[in-house]
């Protein structure tokens, strides 16, 4: 189960993800990614990301970057943080302690 709550901080789109990001729920996130601009995936309530979930994050990145947009992550739980580190994702996507600092960076 994944719920994605959308809001704005300044010009940044905040997508607050809660639940699991996996093969079943990935498409829910994919559908919420806008075509451009600054997008923050806030993961304070996201307690699981699978390999299929990482693919959704990568897809978001590939969608936003060529158009000058950017993807940022915030409020990672320790397990998710560790997974993203091990998979090399944190060298690609910037991570911030909270959604406000991510939106304003």
């Amino acid at each position: 189960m994944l719920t994605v709550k959308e809001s704005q901080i300044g010009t940044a789109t905040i997508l607050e993800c809660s639940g699991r990001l996996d093969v079943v729920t990935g498409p829910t996130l994919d559908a919420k990614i806008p075509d451009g601009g600054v997008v923050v995936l806030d993961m304070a309530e996201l307690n699981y990301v699978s390999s299929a979930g990482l693919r959704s994050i990568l897809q978001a990145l590939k969608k936003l970057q060529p158009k000058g947009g950017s993807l940022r992550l915030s409020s990672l739980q320790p397990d998710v943080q560790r997974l993203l580190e091990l998979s090399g994702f944190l060298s690609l996507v910037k991570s911030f302690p909270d959604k406000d600092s991510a939106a304003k960076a």
Partner: protein
Amino acid sequence: MENSFGSGSKIQNLLEQAYKEYQSVDEGTVASYIPELSRANPDHFGICVATVEGKTFEVGDCDQEFTMQSISKILVYALALSLHAEKEVSLHVGVEPSGDAFNSIQLDKKNRAFNPMVNAGAITTTAFVHGATFESRWAKILDTLSAAAGRTLRMDEKVYQSESKTGHRNRALTWLVTNFNQIEATNNLEALELYFMQCSILVTARDLAVMGATLANMGTNPFTGQSVFDVQCIQATLSVMFTCGMYDFAGEWAFRVGIPAKSGVAGGILGVVNRQIGIGTFSPRIDEKGNSSRGIRVFQYLSEELGLHTFNFMNHGSSFLSGLSGVESKVPTR
């Protein structure tokens, strides 16, 4: 102790999730070409993962025994390659996926079976297990498979008798490859009986996972520390599993799951993620190609969720190359 799988609870959760998700799948039917197989309980369902660090995770009926059937082919192939040079074995059995069913009567242009996973190729492979007597040859097979599973395995006598009595097509295949000198005529019927016997060895989903972990762990059983297969033969064995392991579903399997695996008509599937884990599943309902319906789904699910496909974007390629030239794998952003 913290290992590369962390506390492992996530893997356990994932297995439970898969079990829950596919428990209600009732597509397919229990194999019935011999009466003993048709008596299997179609609702049995077990999933086990064994790591090269010697840890298991399991859910469902992982103590339920069933016969290996075609899964034995891959382990006996690894045994044959441990006993003989690959070139010698390859003179008599090819490594080309046939696209045909397991009981295909076709041979390749060199009059060999297409690969060791079709019956003609498996019987040829079993003939490579030499010994002074029939009993010593059988002991070599049973002891090797037992060592791979980390426990003493036994054969289901009734299944064996039934396979042997009704296996006329396999008998014909044996004579066909004998005709082309792939097996010696003095050896061929012994090889055929050994083949029927190896197919009748009883295993559990947990055994399959541990056997898979033994292959994943360069041929050494990670639970017992016993070296079972020559390290040289692992790459060849996994390659054959990858291209030919799932009968005539092998291409689709490689595409969707991407894990070297071997299935059997009793409902087992053994999968190997090289250097990491072995996976064993058991569910007796098989599809028209002979593969377990729930098993296929479980493997596809685990492959997606854990990024196990050989060509998954998370796969970093050769660590040797990274070390040698500083070619670090990067996730592309364009």
